[in-house]
């Protein structure tokens, strides 16, 4: 059993912690999976939360892909000043994650991490989705129902690609990598981590 207060706290925390908007199904299948709750009950909690935040700096809204908290529109002009202009650049970690999603799509975050050998930060996934390059196209039906990520048409448009298949032709092989490949091919896959490191140190 779960008290009304606990239920509201869980729903609130889950929506705040989500990378993007959260659906009622995600709540029922995830954070509330251990409780027997129905959709009307969750809707009621969401209505209460909306009410709780009525006078606050942020509000709970329902968008096409679910529920999310967002800053109150009238605060926008003042909040603008929190982000002074600067020319940002993407990190190697972000680009590698994007390349991996393009190549292995549809792919879960866990699969990306397994290949890269390091964890992928939530911020990277969020940036890629905010940019509209990556989207969730479904969920893998395994425990936890992890999201499946794929590249979008906006991704192809941005990079002027007809298809993801146009990418490898552009990838110019670097001669110093050839050696690494030769060394690598003599060894089984589990040693790849160590070899990848050698490469990154060059």
């Amino acid at each position: 059993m779960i008290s009304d207060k606990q239920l509201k706290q869980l729903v609130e925390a889950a929506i705040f912690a989500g990378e993007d908007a959260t659906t009622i199904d995600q709540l029922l299948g995830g954070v509330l999976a251990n409780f027997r709750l129905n959709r009307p009950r969750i809707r009621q909690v969401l209505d209460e939360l909306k009410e709780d935040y009525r006078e606050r700096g942020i509000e709970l809204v329902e968008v096409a892909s679910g529920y999310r908290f967002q800053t109150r529109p009238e605060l926008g002009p003042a909040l603008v000043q929190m982000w002074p202009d600067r020319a940002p650049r993407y990190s190697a970690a972000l680009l590698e994650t994007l390349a991996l999603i393009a190549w292995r799509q549809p792919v879960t975050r866990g699969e990306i991490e397994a290949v890269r050998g390091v964890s992928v930060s939530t911020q990277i996934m969020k940036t890629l989705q905010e940019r509209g390059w990556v989207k969730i196209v479904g969920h893998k039906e395994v425990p936890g129902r992890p999201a499946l990520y794929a590249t979008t048409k906006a991704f192809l448009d941005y990079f002027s690609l007809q298809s993801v298949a146009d990418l490898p032709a552009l990838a110019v092989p670097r001669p110093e990598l050839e050696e690494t490949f030769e060394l690598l091919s003599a060894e089984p896959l589990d040693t790849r981590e160590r070899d990848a490191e050698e490469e990154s140190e060059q």
Partner: protein
Amino acid sequence: MEPEQVAEQQSLPLGFVRGEPVFEQPEDLYIPPEALELMLDLFSGPMDLLLYLIRKQKMDILDLPILKVTEQYMVYVEMMRELKLELAADYLLMAAMLAEIKSRMLLPKIAADDDEEDDPRAELVRRLKEYEIVRAGAGQLDQQPQEERDFFVANAATDARELAGQAPAEVGVDELAAALLKVMQLVDVQAHHQVQRETLSTRERMSRIMEALQVQQRVEFATLFSPEEGRSGVVVSFLAILELNKEGLIALVQADGFSQIYVTRSTDTTYNNGNNEAEELLA
């Protein structure tokens, strides 16, 4: 140092044999290979093993029982060597150091005045004390609340960033291609720069099919093919459906032998709350 640290160290099993934790070294000093491999996972290095052996003697690091510890340490290292286990090099280095200290301890003392300075164990004791701090620090770190394990950062979306006209970062296709190359070599060596274009097209098509299934619970098999794409496009779609089916991301259903084939999301029945499907179809 702290007594609870000692207790923790004591309760650490040497390994697990058929699910049973091994706390004590068997009398005949035989440790099954699988236990030893697990033990190697348990210890983060020779210092960790050494610290464990000292704790097992219920001794203070300061009175390092070098003879006993060296003896036991050598037993482990000998077994590692027999089993040709990796990591042995770091352990061998420590073995050599222990052997050297042991031999110096056995030598008769030349000038027995300044014992602190002359103790051959002094350097190892210093290192063990230092390592003990690191080990305790690591343990405390592990106990700390950790992001995405114990708590999640709460963020809200905002339209202010767009208002700010903060231009998103620019990146060129060549950078992306270089990133792809880097990632590819992590995974499949054979493939490197000549990953088949077909594979990529297929993966991309798989995404589009999953996306279509987000909108509709099921679609007719035939609608996933567009004749205007030509023969190669049809092949790509077909391969994508086969691959999705193989990865368990979709299911192919047919009411009877000659009726229409439908492609559906593979559904998880554990949490379905009845009217999901109707709502999704309406959405």
